[in-house]
Structure formats: structure tokens, C-alpha cells
């Protein structure tokens, strides 16, 4: 316990881990949105979504290598590169997600539920294998292009990078919210999520709606890919498996199909991860060895008492 006290000093460390958890959570939220958008519309768990996110990190690494980026960039160069990378990342993942829908899932829409599920798993394998063939099996560091300046607020170091990530993620989530609430296409998506047949009867182009869900979900995952490359900065062909699994968990935790749930779940899971690593460090193997068990334990407990997730709607039993 003495060890515990020595390594878990004070409020500064708590807020430091909280800040890290929020940054991690922002990325999980972006990827969770992709899962929830697709599930809300066609009730499919897009198992390949994590690998779509991974491919954004891979392509950005290849582009940064092609541009010869090695060290910190400053001023306009940094802004230009960030805008370029954001556009590329979002475009790559959006294109990939939409292609998967068109090639693998569309034909299976009327098929029994397991068929598109297995197809998704298959696509996941394909994306992982191609990535492994492209960049090998190891971890490749993404060049540290973002400056490491940090604000010091009462001892807690908050880096400008984390503020940028948070701002970018929240900005994208707000844009998504406005899109869904105010535009015609957004309304169409909400209608299709509620009842696809009725929406079709109302004149909603179901194909286009599904296309938008995959497009937007993919784009958000692509943005998360850029964030991941800047913060974690380790590109690996298998990253999408775990990251996607956790993001999906976050979506379920917050209420699958609910966009606000995905955001809440993402941030919540990120914070739980960071705090568990610190405050469960006394367990054998350290907090990091137990953190998955803790997070999934919380998930299971939550689902036992609230099966539709934190923000999910309670569906009454059909009579």
C-alpha cells in the first residue's frame, strides 16, 4: 500500500490522467460514432470499421514518408500539413467504408443476419492482411510533426496537441449533430433508423441514406486516424482490431444506435482506461494488465441493469 501511495500522488496526477483519458476518449468517440451510425441504420455491426480507422493511420504514414516529414513543423507548414492530412485521412476511410458497403454488405441486406456479420469479419481480415503486407508486422513511429508545447495549469501539463485533438473531435461531433438535426439528409437518416420501410414509403432514398451513414462514419474514423497518429504515433497493421473493439464497446456502453451515446460512451471509456491504469496499478501486473477486464466488467454490469446502454432508449416489452 505504501507503493500505492507513492505512485499515486495527489490531485495533480488525477487530473493529468483525466486529461489523457479525455484525449483518448475523443478518439474512441469518433470511431464509436462510425459503429453507431451504421448500426442505427441497418442494424449491422461493421466489424471492419476498426480496420478502416487503421488504414487511415497507414495511409497518413505513407504520405508523411513520401513528403519526407521527420521533425516538428511550425506555423503555416504545420497548419497546411494538418489540413492536408485531415482531408486525406477522412477521404481514405470514407472511401474505404463506402466501398465495403457497396461490395460486401449491400447484397446481403435481405440475407439472414449472420451473413453480413461474417462478411464484415472477412473484410476485416482482408484489410488487416493487406496492411501487414504493406507496412510489415512491427510498430512504425509516426513522425512527431506537432510541437510538444504544453500549458501548465496548476501542475497539470496539458499539451497544445491534446487541446487540438479535443477541439477537432468536438467540432466534428457538433457538425454531425447539426447535420442530423437540421438537414434533409440528416432527417432521412433519422427516419431510416427509426423504420426503414416507413421511411421508404415516405420517399426516402434508403440506398443513399445508408451510403451517407457509411460515408460519415468512415470520415470520422479517418479523422480519428490522424489524431491517433499525432498522439499515440505508433502505426501497426493490427491496431484496428483492439481499437475498434473498444470503440464498439463504447458505442454499446453509451447506447448502440444513439449518436450522443457513442460520444458519451467514447469519452467515458477513455477516462475509465486512464484512471484504471493509474489507480489499479497495485494489482499484479499493474493497472495496464487489468484495464481491459475492468472496462468490460463495467460494461457488463451496466448492461445487466440498463441493457440499452447509458443513453439508449428503453424499449418496452412487446405485448
Amino acid at each position: 500500500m505504501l507503493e500505492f501511495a507513492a505512485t499515486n500522488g495527489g490531485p495533480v496526477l488525477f487530473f493529468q490522467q483525466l486529461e489523457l483519458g479525455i484525449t483518448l476518449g475523443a478518439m474512441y468517440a469518433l470511431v464509436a460514432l462510425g459503429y453507431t451510425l451504421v448500426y442505427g441504420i441497418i442494424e449491422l455491426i461493421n466489424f471492419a470499421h476498426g480496420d478502416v480507422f487503421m488504414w487511415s493511420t497507414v495511409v497518413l504514414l505513407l504520405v508523411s514518408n513520401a513528403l519526407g516529414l521527420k521533425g516538428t513543423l511550425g506555423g503555416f507548414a504545420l497548419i497546411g500539413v494538418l489540413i492536408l492530412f485531415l482531408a486525406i485521412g477522412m477521404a481514405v476511410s470514407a472511401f474505404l467504408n463506402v466501398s465495403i458497403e457497396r461490395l460486401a454488405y449491400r447484397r446481403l441486406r435481405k440475407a439472414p443476419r449472420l451473413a453480413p456479420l461474417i462478411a464484415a469479419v472477412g473484410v476485416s481480415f482482408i484489410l488487416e492482411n493487406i496492411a501487414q503486407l504493406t507496412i510489415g508486422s512491427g510498430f512504425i513511429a509516426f513522425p512527431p510533426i506537432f510541437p510538444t508545447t504544453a500549458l501548465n495549469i496548476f501542475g497539470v501539463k496539458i499539451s497544445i496537441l491534446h487541446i487540438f485533438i479535443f477541439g477537432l473531435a468536438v467540432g466534428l461531433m457538433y457538425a454531425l449533430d447539426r447535420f442530423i438535426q437540421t438537414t434533409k439528409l440528416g432527417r432521412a437518416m433519422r427516419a431510416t433508423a427509426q423504420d426503414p420501410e416507413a421511411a421508404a414509403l415516405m420517399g426516402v432514398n434508403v440506398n443513399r441514406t445508408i451510403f451517407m451513414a457509411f460515408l460519415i462514419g468512415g470520415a470520422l474514423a479517418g479523422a480519428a486516424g490522424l489524431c491517433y497518429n499525432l498522439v499515440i504515433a505508433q502505426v501497426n497493421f493490427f491496431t484496428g482490431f483492439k481499437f475498434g473493439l473498444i470503440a464498439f464497446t463504447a458505442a454499446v456502453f453509451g447506447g448502440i444506435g444513439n449518436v450522443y451515446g457513442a460520444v458519451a460512451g467514447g469519452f467515458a471509456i477513455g477516462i475509465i482506461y486512464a484512471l484504471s491504469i493509474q489507480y489499479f496499478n497495485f494489482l499484479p501486473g499493474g493497472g495496464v494488465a487489468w484495464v481491459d477486464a475492468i472496462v468490460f466488467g463495467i460494461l457488463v454490469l451496466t448492461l445487466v441493469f440498463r441493457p440499452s446502454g447509458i443513453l439508449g432508449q428503453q424499449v418496452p416489452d412487446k405485448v
Partner: protein
Amino acid sequence: MQHRLKRILTQGSIAAITIASLGLAACGSSSSAGTNVNKALIIGTDFPTSGTDASLGLPTQQGADLAIAQNANLGNGYTLTAIDKNDEGTSGADPNIGAQNIQDLIANAQVMAVVGPFNSGVAKSEIPLVNAATLTEISPSNTNPGLTKQQYAAANNINFAQLHPAGLPESYFRIPATDEVQGKVNGDFAFTTLGAKTAYVVDDKTVYGIGLATQFKQEFTAKGGTVVNSIEITPDQVSTFPSVAQTIIAAKPDVIFYGGVTSQGGGALKAALYQAGATTLPMVGGDGIADDPGWITTATAAGSNNTYGTIPAPDLSSLTSSAGSAFVSAFTAKYGSAPVPYSAMAYDAAMIEITAIKNVIAAGKPVTRANVRDAVAAINYTGLTGTIAFDANGDNSGGALYSVYEVVNGAWVFKQTVHVGA
């Protein structure tokens, strides 16, 4: 008429073929009957010489090949050549391919000894075969203690009785010290050379990493240091490493020990520590990270500084004796590139086998696998890597040698040699 002719021709040709093959068989069997001894001896090698492991596997094999080429003529009419086998599979060295290679070498009656394998995982499948055939196999690089020490076998998923069947003489030998020695060397290095009083221990959850970490902790605390905490990481936790790094920094250790290989998360953790502000915190590891270019790629050029790693083989720069320099120049002349540390170990392994064969010839005994094995078991050889003698388990009782490497300015640099034991 035609019919009878055909019958005669058919029967005649069958008879001719039968007589010819009997004759050939008679010739063949008479040469192994002892009156006509085949003096063209062979030493086999088994290394991963293609794919991802080739950068170490091939130069190691070349070290053995050099010794064999230098001793092509053993005197008394005996000649020596090499048969090189490759055990690289689709994703690294493959134990099944290694086993097949050893079967091929065993089937060749002229093969008197083998140098290899590179990987402990491959050795696990080869040792039962060479023991059953009493074919000497000396590894220049296997460090898994479970291969020869029964008390470590179970923890390393090794069926000791299957590898070393009772009643058979020990035919597997190895030159480098085993991993539990390496962990101790690291503990001593961290406490004495780096002057660390507190250590944060990390392992990668593999048997190798846990073994190293356990030995490090024992030695570090025995010397008087304190292990602040001990955690286990895996590569799929990479996205949580910023938080893990904060945890480590908050504990204020003087040094971090990483038991494991680069790709299992160590490199990513070092990068995360650097990003979190621990720019001067040193990290010590074993041969899973030492001199590994992948470490620089993963931990970034700036982040990988202040990493130390050990390799159970001599650095080129320490091969300054006349024999050492002769080896380096002969190797470079023959292969066009400098040897790696394991090349010297393989050279010594091959030279031990060659010396053993020469001892058997000089003693007037027939050159058989059993006699060569006995000669190797009894040998006392001084080579590039020091004095080598084998104990009953096949381990090197002549003392251990480790090269310490450090990352300076984003590149691995040789720091010092550490000698342990005899």
C-alpha cells in the same frame, strides 16, 4: 514368333536390371561395411537465412561456413564440407522446417555434427532428434534456459523428458549463457554501472520477458536497490501508453527495466515515455531489444536515446586479439561484409566440432557420430569468445560474455563487454 521375341527381351531386360541393381547395392553396402571408409565428412548448419531473420541468420551461418572452409582438409585423407539448411518459414524461423532439416542431415551418413539453430523455439523441435541420433548440435545463440536446465523447462513449455530421453548421451550443446544469467547481468548493470537505486520493471508477458524481469528484480534487490513496481504490457495496449507512461513517471524511478522484445510493446512504451516528458529516464533491456534497428524505428530517433541492451555475443570491436582480427578480415574478405557478433559464436561452434573430429582422428578411433559427440563433450577450447567447455547438460561452463549496447543520438553503439563466471 514376334510374341516369343518380345517375351525374351522383356524377361532379359528385367533380369539385366535386377543383376545391375544388385551389383550397385553390393557396391553401396560394401563401402559402409568398413573396408572402404568414406572420408568426405560434412558439418551441417541450420539457420534462418532468408526473410525477416536473414539479417542475423545469414551472417551467423557464414561464421560457421568460414571455419569449415578454412579446415577443408582435416589430414589423413579426411576432407570437410558444409551443408547449409534454411529454417525460415512464412513468419520467422519455423520449428517444423528446422526439424525437417535435421532429419535430412541425420539421413546423410557423412554428417558428423551440426551448427545451429539460431532460435530457441526451433531448438525445441530439433533437440529430441539429434539426441535420438547422437548427432552433435552446437548452438551459437540459443539462450532459453529450459532447453538444458530441467528446473526451467516447465515454465518455458518444454517437455524436458522428450528433449533429453533417459539413457541417451547428451548431443545438444550451446555456447551463450542462458537468459537467467542475462537478467542478473542487467540487474547488476543497472545498479552498479548506471547507479540506479530504484527501478520500474516492465515485461511483455512472454516467457522470455517474464524470465528476464524476474532475474533482474532478484539481482537488483539483492544488490540493494528497490523495485518500485512491476507491470506487464502487450502491444494491443499501445493506445493506453500515454497513461502508463504517466504512471511510471509519477513513481520517479531511476531506471526502467524492460524484459521482452521490441515488437511486444517495449519500443512503443519508450516513445510514449519520451513524449510524456521523461527524456532522460534510462531503459535497460536484454537481447530482445539490443542493437535492434526496429527499436529506433518504433521508439523514434529522439525517443530511443538512453536505452541499454545486452547481447550474449562479442562485439566486433572487442575481437582485438590476433585470432579475432584474423577472423574479422577473413570473414570480410570471403563475404564482402563485416560479421555480426553471432558470427564469432558460430565460428567457435564449428571450430569446436572440427577440433573434436581431429581429436577423434588423432586418437585412431573411427570417425562416428558417437565418437565426435564424446570428443565435443570432453573438449576444452579457447576461441574468439573465450574458453569453452561443456557441462553434463550441454551448457557452457567456461563463463559468460555479454556485449552492452547503448542508443546514442538515435543509433546503437557498443558500450562495453561484461564477463561473468569462469
